[in-house]
């Protein structure tokens, strides 16, 4: 019998995601996929499974879940308060969830997108080779309370209790940008001012892109309303008719008629996606050679993250009821926080 994930309560913008659906740009369909691809791959690494295993993306708010059979989970991305039958769970770690236990995930403490991965992956029917929900294209939809999702067969049952330390990316920061086709449409002084400007993310934004605000004149090229639409990709920084920047995310349109000043490096894009409203972001141009040094395929990132996973060490001071645990040999001094598992 198929194992199911029961969603008792869903946050407002919860979706099924994987690494997206490449190959359809020429048909107007952008790749889509997890807003924070790094976080997605972290979950794959923690569960030791395939990059094709889909997970649940939670935007700022979590939800309540249970399952019909014992499953493995991993929690990654924006740290959220998670409990299992009331006991706190470590974020960016893998855990066992037994049939009928209640997994409760609260709002994000920092950052935007959190991920709930399950061993075997969320097993919805793929569309054009991917399970990623693409809201703007109308592929799949937002997950709702009382919905049930199928879980795929898990080949590593029981392998839990791993963690890794995510790279900090949940509070804005400096982001590297590669010049692109229309960068030269912006005069040099405008490009310099762009690098000197401190931007803030506004509340306006979704999986398609986010809006930035700043003090100063708009970043206009002067011919915004009549230029031809050209291809665009996630990471592009587009200037609207008012000269206000939008950074595009995985569900962006495939072509756009507004000029783009540059493209955020893929490895830095999670910083943009995870920036909460009001977070500071700044941009600096790098050349192709520098960008190339940072570039890794998902498989390479997975290999790197897999080697940096380590056993989850539980701090006894964080355990509410020590008596519920069998302390091996009774020699562990709980107050000093020795390893007990």
């Amino acid at each position, binding site marked *: 019998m198929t194992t199911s994930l029961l969603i008792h309560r869903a946050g407002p913008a919860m979706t099924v995601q994987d690494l997206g659906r*490449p*190959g*359809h*740009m*020429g*048909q*107007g*369909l952008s790749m889509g996929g997890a807003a924070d691809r790094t976080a997605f791959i972290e979950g794959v690494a923690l569960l030791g499974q395939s990059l094709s295993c889909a997970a649940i993306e939670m935007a700022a708010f979590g939800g309540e879940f249970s399952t019909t059979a014992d499953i493995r989970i991993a929690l990654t991305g924006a740290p959220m308060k998670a409990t299992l039958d009331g006991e706190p769970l470590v974020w960016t770690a893998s855990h066992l969830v037994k049939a009928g236990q209640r997994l409760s995930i609260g709002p994000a403490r920092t950052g935007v997108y959190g991920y709930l991965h399950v061993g075997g992956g969320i097993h919805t029917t793929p*569309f*054009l080779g991917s399970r990623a929900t693409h809201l*703007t*294209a*109308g*592929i799949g939809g937002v997950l709702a309370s009382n919905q049930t999702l199928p879980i795929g067969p898990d080949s590593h049952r029981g392998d839990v209790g791993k963690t890794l330390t995510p790279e900090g990316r949940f509070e804005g920061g400096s982001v590297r940008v590669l010049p692109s*086709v229309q960068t030269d449409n912006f005069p040099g002084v405008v490009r310099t001012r762009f690098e000197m400007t401190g931007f803030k993310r506004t509340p306006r934004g979704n999986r398609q892109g986010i809006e930035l605000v700043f003090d100063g004149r708009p970043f206009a090229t002067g011919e915004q*309303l*009549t230029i*031809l*639409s*050209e*291809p665009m*990709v996630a990471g592009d920084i587009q200037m609207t*008719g*008012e000269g206000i920047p939008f950074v595009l995310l995985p569900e962006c*349109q*495939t*072509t*756009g*008629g507004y000029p783009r000043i540059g493209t955020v490096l893929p490895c830095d894009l999670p910083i943009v996606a995870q920036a909460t409203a009001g977070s500071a972001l700044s941009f600096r141009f790098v050349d*192709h050679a520098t960008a*190339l040094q940072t*570039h*890794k*395929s998902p498989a390479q990132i997975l290999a790197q993250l897999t080697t940096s996973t380590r056993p989850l060490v539980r701090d006894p001071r964080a355990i509410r009821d020590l008596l519920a645990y069998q302390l091996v040999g009774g020699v562990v001094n709980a107050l000093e926080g020795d390893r007990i598992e």
Partner: protein
Amino acid sequence: MLVTFSDVLTDGANSAALAFRAAVEALGLDGVSETSTSLTSTFVTYDPLLLARDALRARLQELTEDRVWSAAPLPTNRVLWTIPAVFGGEEAGPQLEEAARLAGVSPDVAVAELCAKPLRVMTLGFAPGQPYLGSLPKNWDIPRQSDLTKRVPIGAITVAIRQIVLFSTSTPTGWRQVGKCGFHAFRPNAPEPFALKPGDEIRFRSVSDQDFANLQAGDQSGDGGAIREGLG
């Protein structure tokens, strides 16, 4: 990597982009992950770990000099769709009068011009399956609006810069909506989700509200009463 044949839209530059994309596909270069076209450009997505940027640039440069791309023939197996549509009115075409004024004609003449001849699917883009159709006569070289329309429906017929965009999803837009049809360019539940391909042609046929309603009633196909003919 973007190969652009013109900064302004011409039929020749569009043909060039389509033919050049096919030629890049035919090269079968290792490391090229995806190709697409915009109105006058071919876009080549590649993995810089597998294919060096300079090597790709050299191959594409060489290919641009291989023939006169603007004279290249259009793709084969093209289709002509004749699509019934309603123009004007608060719901179907709230900006017809404004767009006609910008194009320097009356609303009636505007509709006649928009329906006068088949328009080529110059590219699919922005949203899944969504066609940019052109080229309209010169007087339709009108700008996008600087404010956005909050939301146009699926099937919205919108105009700007000598083109029509037939919306495949419901989104905000800077293009002015002059009409509406029942043709779904993106059909997520159909065996072939993308109804159109670049090079196909669309001719709009202006019908009354009543005829439009009759044509849509009971349509399950997503064609919205459109008629399909092969162009060879």
